[in-house]
């Protein structure tokens, strides 16, 4: 092992998709060829100037990139510590970071000659982002979504239908994101000839964790330059929420070799880590194999995956991207968790203090900022990934106040 100062944190995964002991390809033989085909296409096009220019043009003209970095001065003052900067992924078309990845994968699907797109979704943000690009490219789109999530994210379900996608409610297992992922994999196995599976996070079998990261890394690349332009230096800390971990790795990755930058990934503690009702595999789980990769999981003593709990559907997942598992073990990033209550408080704080309504997922990162900022000096800075906007969460938040919208 190289000493820490010479570690190239951007060298993972290895050629077999491993991030140290994590990642890899743990799937049925029925999917191996499809993954091989995807990997070859991905490796070819990610170096193809035409393809990259096509993505860049879409990110600029369709998504609205670069997204701004905003100095939340009022909130920073109130917290009385570090200056807080928000990377405004909530201002992207469709309202979250998810579209960065769906554009990349959909354009790849087109290059591969696939005519049908499938996706899994939890909160519905990835489903909407997928349905959006499918509509624009004229591709058939099927989105799998757990029945529980369909019920708690009605507006996004309707959005996807408006965009022409077929939303398939999944009634197996815990009826949430993990089961939607199982069902999407089954669809892919069956329709592998014409179908491209757009995974929404940095999990799944190789090459997905690396590919999704590379499509999301635009967040960190932009933000790194924006911070240099605005403050003349790099931020002292990065904070992002972690479900599967795509917005987090998108922000973190371009900063990994900047060793002066502390990195914090924040999981959902749900009712509290000690209650068992949470979605925090890095903080309270152990390594195992699920959904095609080895990573930290929330599982019982017999290796069965346990139902997770979070007020935010987008963090309600029992696994996490393998690169996060590796960064945790290597101590390059620190992972912590905040509970539903803390996230809700931060949701209200940012809304009232800065006039920005964040997604409940994002609110977990913000809640951690309220703890971290006061421990830092006022001349230090924290860059937070404001990964999504809270429009989709109105009814969930209203319900916590006994209001039925």
């Amino acid at each position, binding site marked *: 092992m190289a000493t820490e100062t010479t570690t190239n944190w951007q060298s993972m995964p290895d050629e077999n998709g491993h991030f140290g002991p994590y990642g890899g390809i743990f*799937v049925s*033989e*029925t999917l191996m*060829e499809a993954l091989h085909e995807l990997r070859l296409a991905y490796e070819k096009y990610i170096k193809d100037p035409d393809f990259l220019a096509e993505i860049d043009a879409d990110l600029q003209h369709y998504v609205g990139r670069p997204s701004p970095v905003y100095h939340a001065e009022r909130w920073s003052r109130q917290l009385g510590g570090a200056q807080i900067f928000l990377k405004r992924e909530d201002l992207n078309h469709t309202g979250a970071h998810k579209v960065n990845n769906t554009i990349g994968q959909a354009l790849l699907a087109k290059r591969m000659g696939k005519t049908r797109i499938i996706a899994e979704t939890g909160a519905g943000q990835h489903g909407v982002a997928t349905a959006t690009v499918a509509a624009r490219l004229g591709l058939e789109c099927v989105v799998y979504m757990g029945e529980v999530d369909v019920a708690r994210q009605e507006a996004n379900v309707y959005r996807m239908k408006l965009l022409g996608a077929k939303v398939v409610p999944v009634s197996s297992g815990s009826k949430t994101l993990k089961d939607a992922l*199982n069902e999407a994999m*089954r669809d892919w*196995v*069956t329709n592998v000839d014409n179908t491209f599976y757009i995974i929404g996070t940095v999990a799944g079998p190789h090459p997905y964790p690396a590919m999704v990261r590379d499509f999301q890394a635009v967040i960190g690349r932009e933000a790194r330059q924006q911070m240099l332009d605005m403050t003349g230096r790099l931020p002292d800390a990065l904070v992002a929420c972690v479900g599967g971990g795509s917005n987090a790795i998108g922000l973190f990755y371009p900063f990994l070799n900047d060793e002066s930058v502390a990195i914090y990934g924040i999981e959902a503690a749900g009712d509290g880590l000690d209650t068992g009702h949470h979605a925090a595999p890095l903080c309270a789980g152990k390594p195992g194999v699920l959904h095609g990769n080895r990573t930290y999981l929330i599982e019982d003593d*017999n290796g069965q995956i346990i139902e997770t709990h979070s007020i935010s559907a987008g963090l309600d997942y029992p696994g996490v991207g393998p690169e996060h598992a590796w960064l945790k073990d290597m101590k390059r990033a620190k992972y912590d968790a905040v509970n539903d209550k803390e996230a809700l408080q931060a949701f209200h704080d940012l809304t009232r203090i800065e006039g920005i309504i964040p997604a409940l997922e994002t609110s977990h990162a913000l809640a951690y900022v309220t703890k971290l900022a006061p421990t830092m000096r006022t001349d230090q800075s924290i860059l937070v990934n404001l990964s999504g906007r809270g429009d989709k969460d109105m009814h969930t938040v209203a319900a916590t106040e006994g209001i039925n919208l």
Partner: protein
Amino acid sequence: MSRIKGCFERLKSEGRKALIPYITAGDPDQAVTLPMMHRLVESGADIIELGIPFSDPMADGPVIQRAAERALEKGTSLHNVLEMVKRFRETDRETPVVLMGYLNPVEVMGYATFAREAAEAGVDGVLTVDLPPEEGSEMHDVLLANNIDPIFLLAPTSTVERIRKICNASSGYVYYVSLKGITGAGHLDLDSVASKLGEIRKQTDLPVGVGFGIKDAETASRMGKLADAVIVGSAIVTRIEENAEQPEAAIESVGNFVAELRRGLDA
């Protein structure tokens, strides 16, 4: 000689094909599995594939997933499954038993512990659906060291190169998934199965079993003309599901169905 190898050699000398039924251990409850296994053998099963229930059976269809859910509701763990095999072996020393499941429960137990306890219980083969040879050498080495055959799936999409690699890692038999899809899916295209089996046989002398999509005696019979073994899962598990509240009726229904498959295969 391993039980699996011995089984195929005996069948070959008799000019017969192997019938391999699949059931999920603990479905619909743990008490049913042992009498069910014996009934499978009485009805003409040559090898039993016993499923280890898993919460997220990604490669299986809804029928097998529901079986896993029923088994898990009754608290069936990998330890319980091994105990069932052990009890089966108390009275049946001939019929090979192959465990089929997903990696995570085995990973939690630990490969070495699993292999040792499986061997002691009398397990003959292990098919881990989501553990391809590339990721599995450590597990497969400890299985072989305990005289357990690692069994692998081959798919319609497997290239010649992968067929060669997988056959090299396999022992006992190889399991050809006859269609693109999940367990219990769609219709079979016998011509494409025949042509793929030709490719596989160029790479290995191991017996080749075919599964996925075999729903009745007629398809079993037609598949038996092509393959060395016919594997039937969802069609059996459906009969358990239909009788989930009456274990005796489930055993009876499955027994009759397997006997039908046997007649179809021997015809």
